[in-house]
Structure formats: C-alpha cells, structure tokens
C-alpha cells in the first residue's frame, strides 16, 4: 500500500514539475517596462500616429519632450503629427524636424519627413538637399522621397516614422 502511495506521489510530483515547466516555456515573461523619462509617452504617441490620430499623438510627443527634450525621434514624429493637422502647422513642424536633425544628424527619418515638408512648402531645392543627404543613410527612404519630390505627392503611409527609441 505504502509503495503504491509512493508511486502515485512520484507521478504527481513529476506531472506537476513538467506542467510547470511547460507553462513557463509557453508564457514568455513580459518585457520590463522602459522607465527612461518620456519613453512611455513616446511609445503611446507612435501608436496613435499609426492610427492617424495626430492631435492625440501630438500631445503624447509633447509630453515625452517635456520629460526628455533631447529625444530626436519625438521631435521628428511631433513634426509629422503637426504637419498632418494642416498647413498652419507647417512652420512649427519644420522647427521640430530641424531640432531632430540638430540632435541626431544621422536620423534618416527626419530628413525624409523634412524633405516632404519642404516639397509641400514649395522649397524644391531644400527638399532635394534632404534627398541627397538621405541617399547615404537609407536607400529605401531616399527613393520614396525622390518620388514624393518629383511627383509633388505625399508618400503612402508613414514612411519616415521613427519607431525605435
């Protein structure tokens, strides 16, 4: 009797062990939340931008920059969110693209967005300067900007969105 109990207990322990291991393997741990200043707001802004909710995205990027004014990517995306809300915001959008490039001179996305804005503002020469700079950074974005400048049409989608930070 006692040996039977021992066997049952052993099987139970083994089953519990393997079930726990399988559960652990199948449920990847949640990534640790990035606690750097402004990152949560920035990520929320990117999601809103992808949903084309530009006014709300603007607020998030502004909140991110209030906590971390040197976040070049936030300046870039804020510029885009502003620009998409109308021509009245073009000058302010340009300021943010310029700031993004001041902070991070190799941020290809900012050249892409600024080039499109220059095109929309009728500054073809400046748009082409951004295209030229972009050819050495990101060939795909450079080609998209080339098409935008030549056609005078905005690119499809959010090409130029800075997602990683």
């Amino acid at each position, binding site marked *: 009797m006692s040996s039977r109990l021992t066997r049952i207990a052993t099987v139970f322990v083994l089953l519990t062990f393997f079930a726990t291991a399988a559960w652990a393997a199948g449920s990847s741990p949640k990534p640790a939340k990035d606690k750097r200043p402004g990152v949560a707001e920035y990520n929320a802004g990117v999601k809103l931008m992808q949903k084309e909710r530009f006014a709300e995205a603007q607020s998030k990027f502004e909140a991110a920059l209030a906590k971390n004014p040197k976040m070049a990517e936030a300046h870039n995306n804020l510029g885009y969110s502003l620009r998409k809300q109308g021509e009245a915001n073009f000058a302010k959008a340009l300021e943010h693209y310029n700031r993004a490039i001041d902070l991070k001179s190799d941020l290809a996305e900012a050249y892409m967005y600024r080039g499109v804005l220059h095109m929309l503002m009728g500054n*073809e020469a400046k748009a082409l300067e951004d295209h030229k700079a972009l050819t050495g950074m990101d060939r795909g974005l450079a*080609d998209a900007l080339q098409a935008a400048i*030549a*056609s005078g*049409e905005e690119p499809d989608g959010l090409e130029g969105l800075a997602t990683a930070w």
Partner: protein
Amino acid sequence: MVGPRTLAAAALVLLAVAWHAGHQRLVRANGDRAEGFVWQLPQGFPAPRVPPDNPMTPVKVELGRRLFHDPRLSGDGTLACVSCHDPARAFTDGRARALGIQDNLHPRSAMSLTNVAYNATLGWDDPGLTRLEDQALVPLLNTRPPEMGVAGREDEVLARFAGDRRYRALFTEAFPKDDHPVTLRNVTYALAAFERTLISGNSPYDRWAYGGEVAALDPEARAGARLFFSRRLNCFRCHAGFNFSGPVVYEGSAGPRPLFHNTGLYDEDGRGAYPAPNTGVHRHSGRAADMGKFRAPTLRNIALTAPYMHDGSIPTLAAVLDHYAAGGRARSAGPHAPAATDDDLTDPLMAGFKLTPDERRHLVAFLHALTDDSFVRQAQETGQP
C-alpha cells in the same frame, strides 16, 4: 608539473600566434587583391556589389574592356560584344532583335548595359541569372541560335589570345595566381569586371535630383517627372529607385526578390499566351502563371535604345506610352481585344490611364532627360582596343 619557463614559452608562442592572426593581409579567394581600383560613382549612387571571387582591379577591367571590343572573341572572328552593345546606343544595337554570327536572328533584343552592375537579375526573363560572370557565357556559348559562336571552338578562340603578347601579359597580371590564365572562366570574369564600370548617372535628371541644379530639368521634362512619379500613372512602381529599373543590388543591400511583369503585350489565345519562344519567365519555369513576365529594364538612356520591349516590337517611346496607357497593347489592339482587364496574368499595375497630348509630350521629354551624354561620349572615346 609545468615550470615557469615552460609557461613563459607557451605564453610567448600564443602571443606570436595571436599577433600573426591579427596582422594577416586580407587576400581574396582567388589570390587577387582589389587594391588600386577606385569606383567613380555619380552622386547619390551606391557602390556596386562585387562577388568575392572576382574583385575589381584596374588591369582586369582593362582586359575586359579590350575583350569586349575584340571580334576575335567570337567563333568565326566576325562579332565582338560591342557589335550588339554599341556605346553610341547606350550599349544596344538599334535592332528589334539581335543578330548573331552568320546573321542568326536572336528571338529578343540586345539589352542595354547601362548600370548593369546593379541589376538583381540579368537578361530579360531569367530569375536564376544573377552574376555577370555567368551571364557572359550565354552569348559566348549559346547555340539556339548561335550568338558569338564560341561553343565547340573554345580552344581555338582562347588560342588567339594566348598567342597575343599583349593579351597574355594582361591575363597574367589580372589573374596572377593562375598558371595558365587564358581561360574561358577568366574571359568572363574580366568581361564582368569591365561591365561593372559602365555606370551612368549624369543625366539632366541626375543633375536635378542629386546635383543641386534645380533648373537642370526643363519645364516639359519637369512636368513629365511629375507624371512619371504620380499615383495616376505609377510608372515608378516598376521602374523604381535611382536606377529606374526592377530590383537592384549594391554593396550592403539586402538580397532583393526578383521581380518580373506581364504588361499585356500579347494575348495569342485569349488567355494571355505570348508567342514562343518569348514566353518570359515561363520559358524557364514552365509555370503558367509566369507567362509573359519580363524584367523591367532601366530607363536610363532609354531614348537611345529604340526599338523597345523584349522583342523590339514597339518603335518609339511615344508608342510605348500608348501601350501602357491602354493597359497593355493586347487589350486594345490584339487579336482578342478588347480583352478582360481582370485577367490573372497581366500585372495589376497595368490599369491603364488617359494622357492628353501635352502630357504624352511631357513624359517623352522626361524620358529624354534620363540620357547621360557624358556616359555615352566617354564609352565611345574609351571603346577602341
């Protein structure tokens, strides 16, 4: 027990080995070094990708250039590569279909070699042909029909170069590790190295796009560029990027997916068949879905390369525009026209569009603005053996 002297000696040996490993001279797979070759690239252009087994060297390029222009490279000594790839026509021949030795008519037209280094695939329709070194064998050895007619006469052709003092020296210098460097393999490697230098990027469009010359495009060409890159026409979707072509490769680029398009040029049977043997990728794969699929060639110097399409069946750029405006010639004028516009074979981008006479003229002006006169001039000047 290991004594301190033994340990010290072992440490010294290890240090010596590590120092040697860290200071090895990098030597390419075939023993050649790529030293001395400097790309001369137009603004905004990436460096071409070079196979590790065929590094660029000035002497190899020079050897390739000479071979390219030398009719002794054909079986009967009558044709050179340049016979079908004439620099004055942006390395095409002005014919609808190329002419091989003894007037053998090729089914397709000679392709431009402008910026051939960037092509992800070579030839009109072969997804598997990706290296210039391999492509060079096609015209040399093809027998259906014979192009340069070298097949079966390889030894005879190579003996012509082995017996030439200047060529012998060039082969030896270009392939220094080979005991017998005058081989068909080295002929194709030298040709490929030369062809990689045929880079064109100084057209009015380039001076506008990359050179800071906003006025380099005249108003008609600028209006044409607006149309070319518009969503309404979508020309730039297939003739894409800096090379105005299908997929490109270059140093550091990802391996692109080969891309071929059926533009509705033919419909022989009401189901989209193209006339044999020019059935496109289908010719290689046998797949019905690949019927009529061809590569989008570069539009650079396109004004110099008439007639157009894989079989030269469209004589002018304006007529090419009419073909695209119709959503494919076969849909508007083929034996089974008007064809359905939702067939499975014709590329969905071939939706057709309307052009006013002014717009048509502007587009042609834009295509002319892709002509690089300096490229053609330089190719002609350096063309003589």
